[in-house]
């Protein structure tokens, strides 16, 4: 049988028997077939010795059961790895960072405990997916929207804790920012409620984030300090209408005023949604190796050649879709004002986009260009890497996603820098997606890698990824979130003052989870007994 590292087979058998008394035999998974379901389907370590695997899985049904399991794990020093829906594909899925950990599968804890239409929030358990919450709201005809990431089957809690993002307005699209109040099982098994939840019988747990005293919720995101068993999430009241429109600009340097205007409209609330920034020119030159090379160059002559191509082919160098939510007369006025501002960019053109009044009919929903912009969850994103008429099937994908400042200069520099790295590797393993704003004041680059049932290909993915992390750090850019295979690499990049922040994380880890039983290695935080002389 598979046994967790540092645990004897006899102890493990005893622990499994104790676990079974808590959750029932049916919810302790130990057969090879069942454990295989806790592999990372999109692993870049496919079939290599380092591929992350579990030794068993447990599926509790309540916070009380989670507490019991954590206490037993402490007795036997069993490493646990909680997952909520286990669908964090591209970021490690349901597989533990430390091979041999016992996965704590929280999918059965799938209750929607409360939804308030008046104050626009929900209180949910970790197994609740975006599809679940959407169905709940729709079936009851509530005038509320969820904000969902690309795949709708992810956990509302898990996605927020991993700093996942969506596509409607602030603050809803930053899912951690939209949470309000948590219930957490600590590494000791103790149950804590954060914010106003610490007040017995609190009337405002999902209304007021801070409670009294230090605000600790951030400790439980991208970490391994506790298991979140309940969380509040703010929902968006259904707006009256939605409108969007596209601006096209045609010069290489037009990205600078374009992004400045995006900053202004976003930070003044005139346009309070994410971006949809694209570079049609980059697509247009994909099949021209010479011009593609020019994208990585800072030689003014290359920039002029690209500008000439854009003009000659009437191909915009950049476009952005501006999105507005609110009363019809207001959103129309916001778009008109945005157009007036952007008209200061010479040659800028505008295209009217979609307009909707809510609620939508089912038929209207099926025709929406970007359903997530309207809080409608789908699985469309999995067409990425699926077999198609123009590409073979892959085995999944993952992304390198550093944060850059929201400025045109940073866009230009980052595109050149990452394009050079990719060309250096002389490989097409990665696809550089144009940066998007998922948070105010920053853009996120997405460098997409396909993983394949091909060890050499996946090794090239890993070495390219690691080089990108290093190069990004040299420019002051760091990852906002990463796949489990790269958590140590990305953590090492946050190295200010001899990795003082990571050392602080380690001290907190030792305090709240002294036996180090929770999610060893997640986000680069290892328990004391698995640290090798610190960072």
């Amino acid at each position, binding site marked *: 049988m598979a046994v967790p590292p540092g645990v004897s087979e006899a102890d493990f058998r005893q622990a499994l028997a104790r676990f079974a008394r808590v959750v029932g035999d049916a919810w302790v998974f130990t057969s090879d077939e069942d454990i295989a379901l806790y*592999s990372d389907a999109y692993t870049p370590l496919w079939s290599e010795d380092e591929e992350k695997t579990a030794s068993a899985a447990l599926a509790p049904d309540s916070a009380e059961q989670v507490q019991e399991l954590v206490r037993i794990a402490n007795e036997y020093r069993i490493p646990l790895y909680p997952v909520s829906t286990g669908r964090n594909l591209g970021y490690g899925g349901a597989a533990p960072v430390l091979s041999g950990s016992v996965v704590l599968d929280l999918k059965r804890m799938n209750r929607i405990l409360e939804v308030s239409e008046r104050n626009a929030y929900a209180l949910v358990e970790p197994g609740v997916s975006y*599809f679940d919450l959407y169905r709940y709201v729709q079936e009851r005809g509530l005038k509320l929207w969820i904000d969902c990431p690309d795949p709708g089957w992810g956990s509302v809690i898990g996605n927020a804790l991993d700093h996942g993002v969506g596509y409607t307005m602030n603050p809803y699209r930053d899912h951690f920012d939209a949470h309000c109040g948590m219930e957490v099982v600590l590494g000791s098994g103790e149950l804590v409620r954060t914010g106003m939840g610490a007040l017995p019988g609190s009337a405002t747990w999902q209304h007021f984030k801070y409670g009294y005293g230090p605000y600790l919720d951030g400790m439980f995101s991208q970490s391994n300090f506790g298991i979140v068993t309940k969380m509040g999430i703010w929902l968006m009241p259904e707006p009256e209408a939605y409108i969007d429109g596209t601006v096209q600009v045609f010069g290489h340097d037009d990205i600078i005023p374009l992004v400045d205007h995006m900053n202004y409209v976003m930070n003044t609330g005139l346009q309070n949604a994410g971006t949809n920034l694209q570079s049609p020119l980059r697509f247009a030159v994909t099949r021209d190796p010479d011009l593609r090379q020019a994208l990585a160059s800072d030689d003014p002559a290359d920039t002029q050649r690209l500008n000439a191509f854009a003009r000659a082919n009437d191909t915009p160098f950049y476009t952005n879709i501006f999105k507005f939510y609110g009363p019809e007369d207001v959103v129309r006025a916001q778009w008109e004002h945005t157009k007036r501002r952007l008209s200061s960019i010479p040659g800028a053109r505008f295209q009217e986009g979609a307009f909707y009044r809510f609620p939508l009919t089912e038929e209207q929903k099926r025709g929406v260009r970007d359903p997530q912009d309207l809080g409608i969850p789908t699985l469309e994103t999995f067409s990425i890497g699926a*077999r198609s008429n123009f590409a073979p099937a892959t085995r999944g994908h993952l992304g390198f996603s550093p944060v850059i400042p929201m400025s045109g200069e940073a866009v230009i520099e980052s595109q050149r820098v990452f394009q050079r790295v990719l060309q250096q590797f002389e490989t097409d393993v990665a696809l550089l997606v144009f940066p998007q704003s998922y948070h105010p004041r920053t853009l996120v680059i997405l460098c997409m890698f396909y993983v394949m049932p091909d060890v050499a290909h996946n090794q090239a993915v890993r070495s390219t990824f690691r080089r990108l992390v290093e190069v990004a750090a040299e420019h002051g850019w760091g990852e906002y979130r990463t796949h489990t295979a790269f958590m140590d690499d990305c953590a090492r990049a946050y190295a200010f003052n001899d990795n003082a922040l990571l050392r602080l994380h380690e001290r907190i880890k030792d305090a709240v989870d002294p036996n180090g039983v929770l999610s060893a290695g997640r986000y680069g935080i290892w328990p004391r007994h698995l640290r090798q002389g610190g960072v």
Partner: protein
Amino acid sequence: MRLRVLVGGVPVTLAVVAVSMMASGLAAQQGTAGAQIADRATLERGEAVYDQWCAACHDPGPRHPGTQALEALYEGSKPAALEERRDLLPAVTEAFVRTGVSVMAPFRKTEISDEELAALAAYLAPRP
């Protein structure tokens, strides 16, 4: 470890083996027998499982990645949408759900239980 077998020296998932089983008829007897005894309640349950877990990728029409992938694979020789298929023997459905294929990750028993999977397989199976 993920369930794998070696076919001609090439590692493949069990799901691919299931296709071979289907083609060679090895799964036929067991599969059709399962479908024949499915009662209405089982089929309704199977449809509910399909709606919850499969429809978002495998319903007909564009914007469904599973349907897109099967269109490209079969090039019209079989329906691309799962509910329109008449050849999905239960063992095949069960193998794909538990092992996944391409970008479709397998489904755990906390998502689709063995009983729900049997109902789903009966719902998608050829009916007498």
